[in-house]
């Protein structure tokens, strides 16, 4: 199993080296992103987000399996309204759109392909384990902060929201603080 993934990774990487286009100028990409955010403000009066979509999805799944418990859980109940399906949430649709948009950009740039992003010094298995744990840690962080980098940092940042700026500085701080300890995963 591991060797199959290994081959896939190398093959995909080789293909990418031939076909993939360079990334867009980060400032231009940032302007594009900023205009999308502004469009959200103007059209709907809210910003972007991602973690909220996960919350809605988890609330929906738990309600499928244990509806009574889901409704009694204060955190999940907030995503379970009486008359609307939990997946009919703004953020869920937005995240599905993000998937489509990313795929579109990737296809245009020749950057779509099965691969595992990692440095040369760790195995695929280790990398995937870290990805899972990192994701779980992030989820807890995002839950406490009421948002993630898209919702809090980008949206709240643009609106000069106090909590969002504090959050953003802590994200950078926390990441820089532990980066050295995890360098083997990336270099």
């Amino acid at each position, binding site marked *: 199993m591991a060797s199959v993934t290994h081959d896939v990774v190398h093959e995909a990487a080789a293909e990418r080296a031939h076909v993939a286009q360079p*990334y867009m100028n*980060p400032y231009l990409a940032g302007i594009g992103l900023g205009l999308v955010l*502004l469009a959200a403000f103007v059209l709907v009066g809210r910003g972007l987000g991602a973690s909220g979509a996960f919350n809605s999805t988890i609330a929906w799944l738990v309600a499928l399996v244990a509806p009574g418990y889901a409704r009694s859980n204060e955190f999940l109940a907030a995503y379970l309204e009486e008359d609307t399906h939990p997946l009919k949430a703004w953020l869920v649709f937005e995240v599905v759109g993000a*998937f489509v948009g990313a795929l579109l950009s990737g296809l245009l740039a020749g*950057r*779509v392909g099965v691969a595992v*992003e990692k440095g040369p010094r760790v195995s695929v298995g280790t990398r995937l384990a870290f990805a899972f744990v990192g*994701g779980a840690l992030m989820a807890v962080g995002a839950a406490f902060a009421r948002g993630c980098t898209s919702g809090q940092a*980008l949206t709240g940042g643009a609106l000069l929201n106090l909590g969002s700026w504090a959050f953003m500085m802590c994200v950078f701080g926390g990441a820089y603080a532990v980066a050295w300890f995890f360098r083997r995963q990336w270099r």
Partner: protein
Amino acid sequence: MSAPFYKLDAFGDEASLIVAFLIGIGFGFFLERAGFGSAKKLVSQFYLNDLAVFKVMFTAIVTAMLGVTYLSWAGFLDPSLVYLVPTYWVAQVVGGLLLGVGFVVGGYCPGTSVVSTATGKLDGLVFVFGFAAGTLGFALTFPLVKGLYTAGDLGTRTLPQVLGIPYGILVFGVVLVAVGGFMGATWVEKKMAAKAAPATATE
């Protein structure tokens, strides 16, 4: 004041979901354009060789912020109708730190993990599952963490309110900090590249 359109009843809930989908497309598109479907590119920010994360994020913040400023000034947008997440500063500081650690360990944030999965990265997909698991874990232990979750409740607060600096001046300040930061970032990247170059030249 015509905007935000949805809040002034220009269209209904169903239409707003379609708008969400379209905006999401733009969101995912530009994230991928910037290369944020790649964990290696994202974490390079924290090893100082590639500060694209900082550049993209702050450019986006400045763009949207200036947009809000000018559209409000022109009387087109009513900024009081744009949703602001309330501040729970203790919870958000703890959350931010955890998120930062998760970023370096996992290699993505929730938005970029979706971008990554869309372009075929397995580690992005695994991250998504990890994130889902973490969310479930948080929900299941919510009664225990509720105290921390609601700690530092300051209500809805903005920087102009708290710092007592007029909004327009603060906007200019943020632009100055961002542009200064970009110049600094370019300098740092050059330094790190120069450090790496002598090592590779001998190979």
